[in-house]
């Protein structure tokens, strides 16, 4: 993978700096839209539930009427507006010498390395929202109980397919 070695901006305050420091490639920027829509679909029912609880429950017990609704919609709006782009920037990957490296998260950052020889099988998946933005996710299965699947989302569909081929060539069928 030649595109794994793209030079990165080294501004330590840039949100993608954490990837640059680790020598990782960020995922496609369009992934933030995928995350945003997914968050929206999760947050909307929660906000509505909070509102309904407010109307039917808090008012009935003479609680602070309105608080729950405002809080629910406010937090939901924040989660949809601000967090997805930040979360998307924390995802990074690198296809190195015989191994795949996937990192994500900041508060709790997990940086996983899977050697290609340890890969049992590979999936490339595309959800409806991902298809909309031309993205796909790569799922690598290992036989480990922990990390039995390692998912790398936010890849352009053609790159995901190319990565699958790269990894597939490395999988040794060392099982008798």
């Amino acid at each position, binding site marked *: 993978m030649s595109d794994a070695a793209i030079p990165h901006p080294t501004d330590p305050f840039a949100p993608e700096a954490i990837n640059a420091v680790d020598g990782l490639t960020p995922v496609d920027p369009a992934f933030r839209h995928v995350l945003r829509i997914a968050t929206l679909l999760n947050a909307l029912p929660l906000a509505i539930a909070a509102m309904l609880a407010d109307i039917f429950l808090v008012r009935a017990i003479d609680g602070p009427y309105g608080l729950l609704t405002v809080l629910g919609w406010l937090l939901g709006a924040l989660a949809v507006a601000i967090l997805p782009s930040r979360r998307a920037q924390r995802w990074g990957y690198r296809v190195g010498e*015989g*191994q795949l490296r996937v990192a994500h998260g900041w*508060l*709790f*950052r*997990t*940086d*996983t*390395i*899977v*050697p290609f*020889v*340890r890969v049992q099988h590979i999936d490339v998946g595309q959800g409806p929202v991902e298809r909309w933005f031309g993205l796909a996710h790569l799922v690598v*299965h*290992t*036989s*480990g*109980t*922990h*990390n*039995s699947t*390692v998912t790398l989302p936010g890849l352009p569909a053609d790159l995901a397919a190319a990565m699958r081929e790269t990894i597939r060539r490395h999988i040794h069928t060392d*099982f*008798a």
Partner: protein
Amino acid sequence: MTDAAAPPTAEAEPHWLRLHPATLALSIAKLGPRSLNFLPAIAALGVTGNWAYIVPAFLLFLLFSLLAAWLHWLRFRFAVGADEVVIESGVLARQHRTIPFDRIQDVSIEQGLIARVLGIAKVEFETGAGGGKDHDASLDAVGLDAAEALRGVIRAHRSELATALAPADAPGAEDRLLFAMGPRRLLIAGLFNFSLAALAVFGAAMQFFDNLLPFDFNIFNPVDWIDVAEAYGLDAWLVAHRWVAGLGAAISLLFIGFAGGVATMFFTNWGFRLTREPRALRRTRGLTTRTDVAMPVRRVQAAILVTGWLRERFGWHELRLQSLASDGGKERDHQVVPFGTLREIDPVLATVAIDRPPGETRWERSHHIVALGGLLGAVIAAVGGAVAIARGEPLGSLAIAAAVLLALAALVGARFRLWADLGDRVAIRRGWWKPKLTLLPHASVQSIDLRTDFVLRPLGLATLVFGVPGGSALGSHAIPAIPVGIAQALRTRILAAGGAA
């Protein structure tokens, strides 16, 4: 395949076999717990006042259950081919599953109490497929001899294959007894196995059945002991010496704890035998439910040595092997030496080529920050206790005492988090009250997470989490809170070793 009951192999049209008819008997036994499903219906009938319908309804339920079991039996068939097992099941939706012998890691045979009476056994094929038991196949009940023959066929196939690939094992090294437990050892083990759980269960039962018991006696209650003494005219003496009553209660408490420990040890480990077969370790044990499990040596992923603070003083340890194959579904690693000395454990470890760390090993220590979780819990407990006391609840002092204990345990425990890289394997030690030593060969590591978070990052620390086949998803192997640079170097070293293998 000399056994007459061996399933015939290699035929053009598969020779279909059914499960043992005793499956039906087993399904009747299983009906017991399942009839709980029927309780809501009984309740509904009772509430509506239709008491007369309960017995017919229950009979109908029984009839339907038996019919369903019979249909399942009728529609379940399996065949053993030249190099695969085929299982067809399902009454309406048919399922056809083919398991090549190559993919069967192991065949385990389990016999419950009823099964032993009927001479049948449950055969499970472990394929090492992830995602829990649903992906593994099992034959609920076949004759014991047929089960053993089936296992023989698959074993023979595997070892044939293995010898063709690498004729490593000396043919003479067959069925060597590695470890066995006699009644004496079981008794000692049971005494160390002091069971708080048995105490709790017994105590709860006493509370629960207090009013139902024909005699009114709670052995945990010193007052009841005084009552007993009264009956023998000892009461005057006893009231003067109340501590005797307390002692009586305490002794019976201890007795139940010890008896529970000894009983569970006898039930699970009766006739424990660990033998070395050409390519596998084989373990048979159990008093009522007898299990017979074989672990292919090459499938062993990690060794775990567990002991306790007290039993370590007496030189007793427990050895578990983490393997792809599971242990009758209950535990995810195999207890191969439930209770033995290090001198007995070392030969077992040698057979799986995972030696204990040598005495001069230089252990590295995790950062003390690993105590943070426990300390946080202690703080929460202390605050809760303080609030409770402030609200006039004297029991809050208990929570504060617990908080102090929790904090102490966390701080002491943090000092016992050690690790060492031994070249071809990593050793991870933890625990002070229940010391646990994990030996993880580099070659078993499938993936490694390097985790940091907002607490570890400013301290320049990281946690390594290893993806290892087998074992439980909750208790993954990890080295917590070590310097990032060391963690990265260790990760590179381990994965390089795995890639070369």
